[in-house]
């Protein structure tokens, strides 16, 4: 980036928009070339905004309404292989319907950006948030990031394109927005000028991986045991590099847009003098922060760590941070039936991250807010009390369901 980029006149505007609309605006700013839609609540609001932008001539892209999520993701996968910047998304079982396409996308080194409007998986039907949909791809090479407000959704979408399309990475990125709590909630959002976005986000260049008659390559041939392991290792190395690239990109974001997210991987709230902390992802940050402010008035020094990037997982950094506290409570808005200690996905991963650390506080896990059930302030207080007891050496079950009807 040149110094000139910094001197561009700031034509930033402010608008009252939802998380979904914020991502649609990001698609416009990123000059996305091919977008595919298929209806499922709650993510599909983003496509309604995209459709309107296309209809009004504000977004010049091929906008295709597919006949299933599988096709939706396959279409953009191939468009990206042919050099187009693409956007896609889904929710809940829709995301699962696309699972085969989701599997091959990172393996093909396709820098797709997708929005997941997190939603409970069927059955029984529920429109509300659960994180199992996005988490289902956690082993496959998708970069996964959770955001908790509309501004962060817009900014993270721009960041996601920059990271995914970095030649050192070339892996897809899914931005998780909690269904209803973020997809449908409006907030004031600063919309950056396209000049600044252009300075931040270079054109997608697929280079020698471009599928074009001028570059007649054979993509994804049958490799079998001869080569599969080496190719898999290359994809793993790309995910390792993503960690560094994410840091670089957030620094550049701050330099160009003048706004900072601090540590890209997780946000710390009131942790400096905290005795114990809670850890969670997505919009449950809002009741947690309210509860913390309340508890601090009563002298309970509780902090909060909100995970943004789940893949790559900032294990060492997180372990270093969490090792400072007397106990750590993990709030999972997901389930992982039969997992170690019957915990959720996040608790299991945080414990794994902490294991090599010299300082390993007790880590009770909570399963909470499934199917869009509200995580209330009393729920947070209750979880904090349990974590305090764990800190005092009182044995606690490693997994408790909170807010469950008795």
């Amino acid at each position, binding site marked *: 980036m040149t110094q000139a980029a910094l001197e561009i006149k700031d034509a930033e505007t402010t608008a009252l928009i939802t998380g979904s609309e914020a991502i649609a605006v990001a698609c416009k700013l990123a000059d996305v070339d091919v977008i595919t839609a298929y209806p499922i609540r709650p993510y599909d609001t983003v496509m309604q905004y995209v459709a309107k932008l296309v209809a009004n001539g504000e977004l*010049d892209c*091929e906008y295709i309404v*597919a*006949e299933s999520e599988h096709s939706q993701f396959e279409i953009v996968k*191939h468009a990206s*292989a042919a*050099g187009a910047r693409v956007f896609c998304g889904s929710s809940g079982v829709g995301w699962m319907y696309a699972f085969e396409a989701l599997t*091959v996308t990172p393996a093909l080194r396709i820098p797709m950006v997708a929005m997941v409007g997190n939603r409970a998986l069927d059955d029984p039907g529920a429109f509300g948030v659960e994180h199992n949909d996005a988490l289902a791809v956690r082993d496959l090479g998708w970069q996964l990031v959770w955001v908790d407000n509309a501004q962060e959704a817009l900014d993270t979408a721009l960041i996601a394109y920059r990271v995914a399309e970095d030649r050192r990475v070339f892996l897809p990125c899914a931005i998780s927005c909690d269904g209803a709590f973020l997809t449908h909630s409006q907030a004031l959002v600063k919309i950056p000028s396209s000049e600044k976005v252009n300075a931040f986000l270079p054109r997608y260049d697929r280079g020698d991986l471009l599928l074009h008659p001028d570059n007649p390559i054979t993509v994804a041939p049958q490799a079998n045991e001869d*080569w599969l392991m080496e190719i898999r290792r290359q994809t793993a190395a790309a995910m390792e590099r993503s960690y560094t690239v994410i840091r670089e990109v957030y620094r550049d974001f701050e330099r160009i847009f003048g706004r900072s997210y601090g540590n890209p991987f997780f946000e710390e709230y009131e942790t400096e003098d905290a005795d114990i902390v809670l850890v969670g992802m997505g919009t449950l940050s809002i009741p947690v922060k309210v509860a913390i402010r309340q508890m601090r008035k009563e002298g309970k020094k509780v902090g909060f760590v909100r995970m943004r990037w789940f893949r790559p997982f900032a294990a060492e950094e997180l372990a270093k941070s969490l090792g400072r506290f007397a106990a750590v409570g993990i709030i999972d808005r997901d389930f992982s039936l039969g997992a170690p200690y019957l915990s959720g996905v996040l608790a299991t991963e945080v414990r794994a991250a902490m294991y090599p650390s010299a300082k390993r506080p007790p880590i009770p896990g909570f399963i909470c807010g499934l199917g869009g059930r509200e995580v209330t302030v009393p729920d947070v207080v209750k979880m904090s009390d349990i974590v305090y007891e764990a800190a005092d050496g009182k044995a606690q079950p490693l997994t408790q369901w909170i807010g469950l009807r008795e």
Partner: protein
Amino acid sequence: MATLTDVQPIPKLDPFKGVKKLPLEEFFTSGHRTCQGCESALVMKMMAKAAGPRTIVLGSTGCMYVANTTYYSTSWVIPWMHTQLGSSGSAALGTSAALKALMRKGKMKNEPINVIAFCGDGGGADMGLSAISATLTHPDYNCLILMYDNESYANTDIQLSGSTPYGAHTTFSPPGKMKRIMHHRWKKNMAGMLAAGHPTCRYIATMCMSYALQGMNCVRKALSIGGPTFIHSLDPCPKGWDYDPYLSHEMGELAVTTGVWPLYEVEEGVVKLYGKTKEIAEGRYKRGQVREYLLKQGRFAHFKDEDIDYFQSKVDEMWEKWLIPGVIPFRKEVEADSPAAR
């Protein structure tokens, strides 16, 4: 900004005038590992020759993926990419949409580039039907979907598909002591179904590479007419059909001359029978008996006369009773069909 319904550049591909006029260049060459006598490999070779160098090919999982693209020994001279089993329609659409967007927005040189996605009968007539159907409803994207039909999941050990003929012995439908016929379903009428169901699609055809020049010209027309198109190719398979590999060419001819496999094009909504099929329809060639075709193949070796008679009766029905023989399986209402109460 350009309009969102602008037209993609279309290549000009005149029909080849004869075998001696074919270009010598090959775009599908050595390196593949298909079986001896594989007609589908011939389809790939002729398809690539017909399309020429400015072509992108997307290949759905199946024989023509697994056997054709061993890592480090690809047989494709033109760019080629794997797509999932049920994704030929989506692969064609996505690639074409990318070219269109990038060319319109000045991010790529504006020129005609052919997009071909192929699938086998499992990937096309079974799993990929939904995506193929969707793609054929998008008149603004140029692409060809070619289904090479060897009448089974031949790559995975010869399992029956929705395109396997009645009664055929496959590993999922072996004749046994209690049941001689395990596969009772009649083969899907894929091209006819797609032609009837997608009125804005400008070109749908059947072909058989035993008639290679006609086959290649089907491909050239499909690529130069504009919009999404579909070709259904019947490909004899020595492994799946169980016959001596040197008979592949003859097996394709027999499928056509016995009337089992009609050759036709539906161009701008007009049905045109061609080749031997046309001669049969016009009474210039006597349609052969299916017995000559079936009994040359081990997959029908368990057939008794009654099975052959049933097969013959279904083929006769197609020729004698269908609204358009070989294409549209409806019949017009005749006096005898009317419900008595009316």
